[in-house]
């Protein structure tokens, strides 16, 4: 609202009436029609849209002129911040005065012009700020994409596939798949950092990196001597099971303790599922840290849900996680996903739900790639482009039927 020149106030005084507006009282609401404009004489006036305060105006400011002069609805609500006195000018009176008073007309036009100029400057400033922020987020999105694997491991007799679709520019979900050469195994991780936006995205990079770096620390320590993974050819599995367990436990627990102790004040946590698979035998050991239960299925039926074996990662120092084991037979698939999939909503607000996901899985047999295509198609048919609220992540691994 533009500060009215003194001349305008003086002239307005001849055609208006003084009204008082006690503290807390609303003069008009956004959307109302009204044919009066006001000049503040005393007290402070709050311009707001519901609970959102847009401005606080002091004596000398003009309010309500857009709706009254333009025959438009009020663009914001007006409430007295203190006991205030206003000068009310009815626009019918105003227009008849304008016809006879050239000086008054000039004052009004000049006030509106200078107001339009200041609005235009604000709009330009704001669009520049928005553009800078958008550019920053785009850079963030680009950098964050490098915290997901560029390619998935290629393993004879197995097929791996991943789907990742963020709800916003940056994501709190992550997945990972990597060879752990020191123990001749494949590591699979899916995680979901609580909360959304940039905060969750920063923690996503931390969780992903700590888990991967700890799981691969033996490989890194023996860079030159790490055995080459030769999954299909190796008849005997030489790696004792306790090294697999150690790798799972170390990765989850040191990540948990590091984040809980270093960043405990933020109360940020992630649900994480971390599995290590022996590609030769199909044996699978895992820790499910508060994550959606992954599912093993094959021969057109759901075989097993992999229940949680400990709490979420990152907020309970010294938390204990158990290791569970199972096996993928030939023809079996393992599907690891985040709740963004099961909680995806249709236009009517209904959730995709676990039961729909399970139905899709149970009616399916084939490779991980085509499985993911099936799920995404089923999900898209259900949501039909309704707004996506949460990140969607799926990691699937399939053991071929023939070997």
């Amino acid at each position, binding site marked *: 609202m533009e500060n009215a020149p003194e001349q305008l106030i003086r002239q307005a005084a001849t055609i208006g009436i003084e009204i008082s507006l006690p503290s807390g009282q609303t003069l008009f609401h956004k959307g109302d029609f009204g044919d009066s404009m006001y000049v503040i004489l005393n007290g402070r006036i709050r311009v707001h849209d519901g609970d959102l305060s847009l401005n606080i105006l002091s004596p000398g400011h003009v309010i309500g002129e857009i709706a009254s002069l333009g025959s438009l609805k009020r663009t914001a609500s007006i409430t007295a911040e203190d006991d205030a006195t206003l000068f009310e000018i009815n626009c019918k009176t105003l227009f008849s005065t304008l016809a006879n008073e050239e000086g008054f007309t000039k004052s009004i036009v000049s006030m509106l012009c200078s107001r339009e100029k200041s609005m235009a400057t604000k709009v330009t400033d704001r669009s520049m700020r928005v553009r800078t922020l958008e550019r920053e987020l785009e850079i963030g999105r680009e950098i964050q994409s490098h915290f997901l694997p560029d390619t998935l491991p290629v393993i004879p007799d197995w097929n791996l596939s991943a789907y990742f679709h963020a709800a916003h520019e940056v994501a709190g979900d992550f997945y990972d798949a990597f060879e752990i050469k020191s123990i001749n195994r494949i590591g699979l991780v899916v995680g979901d950092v*609580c909360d959304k936006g940039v905060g969750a995205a920063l923690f996503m990079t931390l969780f992903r990196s700590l888990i991967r770096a700890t799981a691969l620390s033996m490989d890194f320590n023996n860079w030159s001597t790490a055995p080459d993974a030769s999954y299909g050819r190796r008849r005997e599995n030489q790696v004792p099971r306790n090294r697999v367990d150690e790798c799972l436990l170390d990765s989850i627990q040191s990540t948990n303790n590091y984040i809980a102790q270093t960043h405990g*004040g933020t109360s940020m*946590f992630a*649900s994480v599922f971390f599995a290590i698979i022996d590609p030769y035998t199909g044996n699978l050991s895992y820790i499910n840290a508060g994550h959606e239960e992954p599912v093993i299925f094959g021969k057109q039926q759901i075989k097993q849900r992999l229940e*949680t074996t400990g*709490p979420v990662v990152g*907020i309970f*120092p010294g938390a204990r996680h158990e290791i569970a084991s199972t096996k993928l037979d030939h023809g079996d698939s393992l599907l690891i996903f985040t709740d963004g999939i099961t909680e995806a909503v249709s236009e009517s607000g209904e959730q995709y739900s676990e039961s729909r996901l399970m139905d899709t899985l149970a009616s399916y047999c084939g490779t991980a790639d085509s499985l993911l295509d099936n799920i995404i198609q089923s999900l898209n048919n259900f949501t039909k482009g309704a707004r996506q609220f949460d990140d969607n992540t799926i990691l699937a691994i399939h053991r071929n039927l023939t070997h």
Partner: protein
Amino acid sequence: MSDTLHIAISNEAASVTVLQLTGPLDANTQKDLEEKANEVIDGGAKHIVLEMSKVSYMGSAGLRAIHAITKKLGDDSDNAIKSDDLKIASPSDEVRKIFKTLGFDTYIDILDDLDSAIASF
């Protein structure tokens, strides 16, 4: 469905402050709960019960708020042990399932009714 969280404060026993929550506990209301809890803790509350029978939905942001309250109450030792100062009373089956799935039930007592929660300190 309302999207605001209503928080009623009462002192049911000498040293126990009860926050009765009505509505969703999610990313939009997480700060409301944290701020209200901070107020009562700054006002001297040592033991808090969150009465959750009327919580219609709880998301992970709600769990962040609950964790932040346990920290504020001083349960921040380096070893994960059960919170002595914060208890949950009468959550719905769905809310209880979320506590269990995310493993919060190991660190925070969840009681079936308000009286046993108050008596549990």
